[in-house]
């Protein structure tokens, strides 16, 4: 294990290191992005291209009585106006969601959330398309909406999904994990039981680039080209083939540069399908680019869990069991993107980093008249909610036992010798060594000094809080024996070709949205083959030119596709070894691999480089018996288990007693994501996630009024953190490699988004301890903190 602290803000590595393998390396993709030469979906400009705009429902729940499109059709520049009735005729009015539900492509019978797609216009320019929307006359018969999730299952609640045959309520699913009887037994014998109602409000990933697509259907070739903001181009292609009936080999999905995803670009949105239909109908390329309000009110939200958390412990602070009951708001359609056998994603890891005797969870999911979605915002398939639940209730236990929250956690960690560790809900943690991670965070924070400072400040009436969170994530979905999305196994392919001159091209099934794949995947190949990263082209985001795989979300690129890249390089190396043995006229057993070349054992002067071998592989002359020419390989990697990164986060806040404003003064994040490929990129991933955490903990919430009007429909109402709301991040790391991953890497993309909200909330609640506060729900805005200080804390929904 190694432990290190990253650089401070005022220090920078002024160098341009070019490691052949792992290490800090500047990004290959930056050259174009810095010059304004990135190519995002909205940058795609095709000859004769038309523009599409969507008419959306102003009501949360209403029957569509009639739609008159005649004025819109006559509007200047308009080429097509399409309604749900038109799509019905084509059999395209409904499409499957990623959770085996269906979602309206355009509403036919009624609208089920504010912002739902009702009709679309295709016109010569964006302005004309928008103008024509104003001319579509829709008559609605407004229905009572279901907005309060707690009332969704009441007998007199309006039924939202009247489209589902025989549906007589708003129930989506019940789900259960763990052993209820055993958990109840442990609870019955515990010294201490603490219960808290905890809400994780609805939030939105809000990537800076909204969602959009450009569809170009060639009627002669019968081929559809679709540029789209997607994190999962291959999965989308398969679904389009199923939905639209276009043969899969006639569909090319291209995800060009993507301006952030965070889960928002995993689902298939009606707008993508609209652009396809628009192109087929008009015979021209059609661009759809949603605006910010459309993005916030209609695309994949995240969270929206109402949780009752209970924890049982001894008087000495040994945690025995955790149980929870969850009410999940899934909006109008169940659009959750998660492996189908996991309707609540990976919420089952709510047992956290602790060695428990029992655990149990019961969950009920319901429909409401709100936008569909559920899994997004860097949540690792609901682990964000799970980590928040356990890390909040552990802090509440510390409050009740009057124990230091760090000490309570240290006392209950799963011990290094217990790995691989099977949790009480059936997850097998691959590796972990928690205490050194926690100790490093405490040392970096100066934990004892902070507690002293806090005591002095409290004596003076100042409000300072120190919050801790320790998380274990489950990422890298996943083993195909039990994980699939709509029947598609969650494996990833990789192809590697070494050219005659020793340069290479590697083709990935995953797709960066800013994570730096063009750099890190070149580094993985470089580490395995000794070819410099600059000589390796990384191709991704184009289904015609990459192998099949499920894409980038749930922090799965490094754990799944990264493993595929390492293994495909090893396959190439194995072949290179056979050729090297012929070139050096020795047996393969007499060869040593020294990064980038094979040497004859005991005679380092006798060696051939990978570049020499590549030329020989493509050149004239004999190759060893049974060896084909060329130097390339491909594989499909099926992970044997998930990977389990962990981390210790400490947050220090000051709360203004006069205004209740929370200032995050310091944030210390120590992450353990196993083997580190590019520390610079890892640090960047962590910084971004921590900022998400500040947003969710203190600012962000998608809320609705009683009529179902979305109150967070612009960036003036849905507040995202700027540089003024966040501190200079202090990061460090430990390294506990994954035993089953070929290079030991675990993934880090979502760790900080998952781990930081509880640290911040725990810090604010700790600051409010003098007021007897032991829990307050996010977002901890000044008004909500003010209420908490006065004993009037209320849930946000």
């Amino acid at each position, binding site marked *: 294990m190694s432990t290190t602290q990253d650089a401070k*803000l*005022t220090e*920078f*590595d*002024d160098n*341009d290191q070019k490691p052949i393998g792992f290490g800090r390396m*500047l*990004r290959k*993709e*930056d*050259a*174009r*992005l*810095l*010059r*304004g*030469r*990135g*190519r*995002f979906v*909205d*940058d795609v*400009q095709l000859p004769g291209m038309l523009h599409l705009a969507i008419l959306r429902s102003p009501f949360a729940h209403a029957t569509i009585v009639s739609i008159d499109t005649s004025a819109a059709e006559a509007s200047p520049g308009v080429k097509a106006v399409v309604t749900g009735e038109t799509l019905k005729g084509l059999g395209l009015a409904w499409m499957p969601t990623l959770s085996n539900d269906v979602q309206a492509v355009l509403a036919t019978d009624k609208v089920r959330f504010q912002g739902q797609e009702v009709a679309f216009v295709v016109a010569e*320019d964006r*302005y004309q398309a928008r103008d024509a929307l104003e001319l579509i006359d829709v008559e609605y018969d407004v229905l009572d909406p279901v907005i309060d999730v707690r009332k969704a299952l009441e007998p007199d609640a309006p039924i939202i999904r009247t489209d589902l045959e025989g549906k007589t309520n708003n129930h989506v699913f019940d789900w259960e994990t763990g052993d209820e009887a055993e958990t109840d037994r442990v609870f019955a014998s515990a010294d201490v039981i603490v219960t808290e109602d905890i809400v994780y409000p609805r939030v939105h990933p809000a*990537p*800076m*680039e*909204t969602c959009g697509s450009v569809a170009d259907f060639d009627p002669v070739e019968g081929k559809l080209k679709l540029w789209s903001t997607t994190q999962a181009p291959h999965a989308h292609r398969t679904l389009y083939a199923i939905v639209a009936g276009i043969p899969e080999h006639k569909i090319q999905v291209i995800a060009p*540069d*993507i*301006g*952030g995803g*965070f889960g928002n670009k995993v689902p298939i949105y009606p707008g993508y399908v609209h652009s396809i239909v628009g192109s087929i109908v008009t015979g021209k390329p059609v661009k759809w680019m949603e*605006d*910010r*309000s459309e993005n916030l009110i209609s695309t994949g939200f995240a969270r929206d869990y109402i949780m009752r958390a209970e924890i049982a412990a001894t008087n000495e602070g040994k945690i025995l069991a955790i149980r929870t009951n969850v009410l999940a708001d899934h909006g109008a359609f169940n659009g959750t993107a998660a492996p189908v056998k996991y309707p609540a994603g990976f919420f089952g890891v709510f047992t956290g980093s602790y060695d428990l005797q029992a655990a149990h969870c019961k969950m009920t999911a319901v429909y409401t008249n709100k936008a569909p979605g559920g899994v997004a915002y860097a949540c690792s398939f609901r682990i964000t909610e799970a980590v928040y639940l356990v890390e909040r209730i552990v802090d509440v236990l510390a409050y009740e036992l009057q124990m230091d929250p760090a000490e309570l956690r240290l006392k209950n960690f799963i011990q290094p010798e217990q790995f691989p560790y099977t949790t009480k809900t059936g997850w097998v943690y691959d590796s972990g060594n928690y205490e050194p991670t926690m100790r490093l965070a405490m040392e970096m924070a100066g934990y004892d000094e902070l507690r002293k400072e806090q005591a002095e400040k409290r004596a003076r009436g100042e409000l300072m809080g120190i919050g801790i969170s320790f998380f274990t994530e489950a990422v890298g979905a996943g083993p195909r024996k039990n994980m699939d999305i709509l029947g598609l196994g969650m494996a990833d392919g990789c192809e590697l070709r070494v050219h005659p001159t020793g340069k290479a091209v590697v083709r990935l099934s995953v797709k960066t*949205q*800013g*994570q*730096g794949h063009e750099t890190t995947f070149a580094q993985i190949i470089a580490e395995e083959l000794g070819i410099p990263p600059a000589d390796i082209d990384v191709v991704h985001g184009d289904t015609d030119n990459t192998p099949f795989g499920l894409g980038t979300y749930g922090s799965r690129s490094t754990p799944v596709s990264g493993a595929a890249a390492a293994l495909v390089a090893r396959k190439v190396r194995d072949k290179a070894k056979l050729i090297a043995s012929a070139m050096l006229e020795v047996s393969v057993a007499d060869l040593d691999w020294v990064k980038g070349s094979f040497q004859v054992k005991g005679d380092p002067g006798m060696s051939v480089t990978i570049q020499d071998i590549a030329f020989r592989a493509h050149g004239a002359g004999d190759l060893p018996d049974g060896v084909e020419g060329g130097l390339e390989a491909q594989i499909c990697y099926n992970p044997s288990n998930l990977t389990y990164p962990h981390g210790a986060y400490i947050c220090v806040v000051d709360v203004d007693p006069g205004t209740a404003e929370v200032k995050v003064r310091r944030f210390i994040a120590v992450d353990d994501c196993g083997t580190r490929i590019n520390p*610079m990129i890892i*640090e*960047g991933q*962590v*910084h*971004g*996630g*921590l*900022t998400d955490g500040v947003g969710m903990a203190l600012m962000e919430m998608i809320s609705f009024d009683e009529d179902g009007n979305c109150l967070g429909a*612009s*960036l*003036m109402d849905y507040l*995202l*953190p*700027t*540089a*003024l709301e*966040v501190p*200079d991040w202090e990061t460090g790391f430990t390294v506990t490699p994954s035993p089953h991953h070929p290079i030991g890497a675990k993934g880090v993309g979502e760790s900080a988004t998952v781990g930081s909200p509880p640290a911040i909330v725990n810090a604010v609640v700790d600051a409010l301890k003098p007021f007897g506060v032991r829990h307050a729900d996010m977002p901890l805005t000044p008004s909500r903190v003010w209420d908490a200080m006065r004993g009037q804390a209320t849930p946000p929904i």
Partner: protein
Amino acid sequence: MQVTMTVNGVEYSREIEGRMLLVHFLRDVLGLTGTHWGCDTSNCGVCVVWMDGEPVKSCTVLAAMAGGHEVRTVEDLADGAELDPIQEGFRQCHGLQCGFCTPGMLMTCRALLDKNPDPTEGEIREAISGQICRCTGYSSIIRSVRWAAVHEATSAREQQEVAAQ
């Protein structure tokens, strides 16, 4: 209506609708897609360009209002193969991830350094507070600006020394 403006040193005259936004004029009419569009409400800043040397949010400026003015966009920062120091700072210090907010950030930070060659952390935070980045958490952007400040100061000093000799 006819609008004439200078963009990155080149004069353009185009027939446009009076309601056209500057961001759409730059992207759709001139094909300068380096400038992005993100929110409509002046909150996110991915559309920042310079108008007469001042950073403005081009999603809330009409193209007509830019008539007769000088506009500068991200495409004009690099001098051929050579990056502007602020671009090099972002490259060196990982000041960008997805790259969507980057053009706006670069224009704002370049303007900051032109006015204040040695900004503090607080001054940099204030300068970019009208812009949102969802990826970097801002620390690396601040580091990038400091990198540019330090390296511009060093190269200015070196030039003075050369001149003095």
